[in-house]
């Protein structure tokens, strides 16, 4: 299976990458981990004249905490996120998403930024990141902009990124005390699976035994983009955590989901799974507060 011909660029800095992309515009595609782009090029879905690799840009591979904000470079590999103690401690749902993506071989190549820009409705990174209210930093020759992840993804394979922009990094705020989160992916098998349904949840309680003061439920694979469930959030806010409350939130989330019948499963089944996965994820999240 041959790759189409292309010219290869290997900028060493973000600035250089922005300059090259500014000149080439939509004749170029950005290469991060390659686990989506190279597959699509082999299948002749895309055949860019130029490929701009971000592999050699050191700043894009870094991650770390600064003043309560955790920055993840767009080219951080899924394996690094899955194995990061800092992420495991503060962002368990994100770690869960990273650990469920593809296979170990894919996780050793695939990047968090690539997963966001590919914008597949069943992708593993967007739901947990949206549950944490993540923002993405875009850079171009004209400067940069910061966009909420929920505004970044527009539809299957569609994002607001312009041809001359690169995704530089993902920013997530360190959660307050008494916060918990979880990610659950439902598939038919454990590895190399595309989610039938996935759910990420985040909650903060007011002290150890207090009511819920912040909550987000994000559902993947049940709409053109990962969906935030406003009804589930409304159900949870101000209430004391309980099994019954989590079940009610699951029912609310199912009402907000917009699944379609496809070869993976029926819409009815997916909706039922949203309900159950939301309930289970909330139980898990409450457990890790």
């Amino acid at each position: 299976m041959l790759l189409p011909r292309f010219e290869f660029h290997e900028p060493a800095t973000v600035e250089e990458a922005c300059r090259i992309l500014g000149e080439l515009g939509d004749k170029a595609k950005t290469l991060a981990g390659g686990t989506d782009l190279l597959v699509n090029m082999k299948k002749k879905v895309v055949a860019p004249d130029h490929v701009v690799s971000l592999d050699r840009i050191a700043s894009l591979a870094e991650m770390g905490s600064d003043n309560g904000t955790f920055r993840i470079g767009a080219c951080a590999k899924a394996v690094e996120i899955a194995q990061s103690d800092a992420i495991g401690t503060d962002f368990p749902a994100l770690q869960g998403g990273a650990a469920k993506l593809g296979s170990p071989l894919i996780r050793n190549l695939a990047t968090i930024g690539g997963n966001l820009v590919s914008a597949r409705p069943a992708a593993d990174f967007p739901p947990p990141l949206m549950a944490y209210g993540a923002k993405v930093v875009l850079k171009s020759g004209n400067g940069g902009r910061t966009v909420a992840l929920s505004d970044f993804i527009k539809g299957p394979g569609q994002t607001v990124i312009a041809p001359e922009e690169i995704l530089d990094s993902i920013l997530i705020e360190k959660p307050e005390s008494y916060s918990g989160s979880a990610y659950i992916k439902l598939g038919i098998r454990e590895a190399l699976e595309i989610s039938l349904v996935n759910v990420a949840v985040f909650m903060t309680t007011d002290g150890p035994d207090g009511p819920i003061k912040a909550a987000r439920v994000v559902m993947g694979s049940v709409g053109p983009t990962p969906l935030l469930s406003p009804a589930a959030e409304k159900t949870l806010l101000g209430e004391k955590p309980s099994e019954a409350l989590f079940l009610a939130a699951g029912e609310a989330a199912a009402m907000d989901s917009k699944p379609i019948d496809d070869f993976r499963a029926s819409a009815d089944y997916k909706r039922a799974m949203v309900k159950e996965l939301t309930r289970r994820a909330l139980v898990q999240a409450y457990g890790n507060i």
Partner: protein
Amino acid sequence: MKKLICLTINGKEYELAVAPNMTLADLLREELLLTGTKKGCELGDCGTCTVIMNGKAVNSCLVLAVQASGKEITTVEGLETEDGLHPLQEKFIENGAIQCGFCTSGMLLSGKALLDKTPKPDELEIRTAISGNLCRCTGYQKIVESIKDASEMDPR
């Protein structure tokens, strides 16, 4: 236009001119005739093209040869040393963990990447480590046992 790359494969340094659209799998097989690395799906699903790149097992069909510049690659040809076969290879043979053999090099390299980091893995760790490698003969049990047995041998 071809690009000049330098990389280390099985301990040997190479300087090569490669087309940008050549994958690492094709470089190994077609240019260097290291045909122990197999090509199955060529889309990252089957794992037969697994090699170890800078300590990590990857699908060489999803890495451009130009991206491998400066990296250290181990293929199945690099497992045997002057002391003989790698413990994994010995155990695969002993246990009959090879049926048609097409997945074997990928399984060996995913197994090696695991043992290099986790010398005494449990069964779940082994099964997870090879979860990107498909065996169409479905001989997983013997493969898992062989990796386990190799981990219990004295390191050489």
